């Protein structure tokens, strides 16, 4: 481990393409450091997994545990109950994204790092939208009647495959066009920490979130509530 004394050594030992894939290409700069350590993989993955498990638990999980049986027999609309739970997850993710945003911004100011507030805001927003999108995938899958395990598994698979397309596809000329279908690419492909708000990607993410929420809400009324 002696050779790994500096971050620069670590990144220079990798081919430029691999360093890009791991998000550590510019790890010796402030932007590169934040990207490599936080925004390239860790935060989107953690927020995404939180989104997926929380949504799966509040929808399919509660339903198959029988906890929705009585609730949905009260004078409430089934679709309202489901949609509200999705919105609660989106809000909780926003709180986490906001806390990370505030913490990073504070460190940036206090450590006088060469990172713009707009960049931190942009990457926080896209990371949050990326997580909400995967909450939306879980929501739609659960709304069709999948069990909790299937719901979480399917949405987590979308999350991981999306990451792989975003990280690995650009390494090969043949696969590179595939990166464009990855939500990770929409959120992080333009390097928002350095380059600011990627409005096209933000719009695409927001539209996908809305479509997934709408589809889930529309189909949940058309099926049977599962029994415990």
């Amino acid at each position: 481990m002696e050779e790994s004394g500096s971050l620069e050594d670590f990144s220079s030992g990798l081919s430029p393409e691999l360093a890009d894939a791991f998000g550590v290409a510019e790890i010796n700069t402030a932007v590169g450091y934040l990207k490599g350590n936080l925004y390239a993989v860790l935060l989107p993955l953690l927020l995404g997994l939180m989104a997926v498990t929380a949504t799966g638990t509040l929808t399919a999980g509660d339903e198959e545990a029988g906890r929705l049986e009585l609730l949905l027999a009260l004078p409430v609309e089934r679709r309202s109950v489901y949609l509200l739970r999705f919105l609660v997850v989106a809000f909780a993710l926003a709180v986490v994204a906001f806390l990370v945003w505030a913490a990073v911004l504070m460190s940036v100011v206090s450590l006088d790092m060469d990172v713009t507030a707009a960049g931190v805001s942009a990457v926080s927003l896209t990371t949050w939208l990326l997580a909400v999108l995967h909450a939306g995938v879980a929501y739609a899958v659960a709304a069709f009647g999948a069990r909790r395990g299937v719901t979480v598994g399917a949405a987590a698979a979308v999350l991981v495959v999306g990451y792989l397309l975003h990280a690995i596809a650009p390494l090969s000329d043949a696969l590179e066009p595939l990166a464009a279908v990855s939500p990770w690419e929409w959120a992080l492909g333009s390097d928002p920490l350095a380059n600011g708000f990627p409005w096209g990607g933000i719009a695409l993410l927001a539209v996908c979130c809305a479509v997934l929420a709408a589809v889930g809400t529309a189909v949940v009324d058309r099926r049977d509530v599962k029994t415990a």
Partner: protein
Amino acid sequence: MAAAISCEGVTKRFGDFTAVDGLDLTVPEGSVFGYLGPNGAGKSTTIRMLMGLSRPTSGRVRVLGQDPLADAAVRRRIGYLPGELRLDDRLTVLQTLESWARLRGTVDLALRDELIERFALDPKKAVRGLSTGNRRKVGLVGAFMSRPDLLVLDEPTNGLDPLMQQVFLDLVAEVAREGRTVLLSSHILSEVERVAGSVAVLRAGRIVASGETARLRRGAAQKFHAVFTDEVPPLTELEGLPGAAEVTAEGQRVTVAWTGSPDALLRTLSRYRLDSLTAPEPDLEDAFFHHYRTDGDRTDTGGRVEAGADAAGI
């Protein structure tokens, strides 16, 4: 009188399995109606369709004149106790009831507190530590507390001790006196026969008997177990009696399935020296399904296995 519940040709399939098969059911307003059948007969499946939790494969369901799937508001007038009651373990009894009350909007707080007291519940207790019976009581308070026009109660007395069963039966009687409607499901006839004016008996998704409780009870078979000290009466003699549905013997022990007044049977038995005579409370299997087993057999084996397993569990 208008129908509180009406099902017309309601069928519910799960894949290849038909849980409810062409059900026609009418529960008049203001009646207490017993919905009987062994576990797996399709009672809960029917009830979940009444509550809009499940969609019939075909047929028409109306509850208080409304389609329960299209109109969530109709559930404001229905109190529901599910057969599988799952409560949120993180709440106390009172918090649970308050969360339901918030979603209902129409709760009589005085009635709620009276019900808590009658069922001897501690409202401050956490749901987590409650026994099955106590959870059931929370569910019952929740169903009754909004004075609904219709109560749909799936196996309400499951897990209640006899004292609490009495409290429950008193409540049902009070509701009935106020002209409200109660649907009670059970797999035990004696649980509902005291309060239900009429019953329907479901088996393998079909109604096999229905009508006034008293009339059905008279027609239901009752088993008598007689153990003789020495001479056993000839089985042909017992079989020849007008009420005997089935006679079986095993050594000194004779079992007679009997319908109607036991008078003639007792006269015959008393001519022999009896060691013991027992007549256990008939379960549904004995009471209603007897004929379906001996006669030409139109029921499938699957249904019978379920019924048998249920009888063993009683």
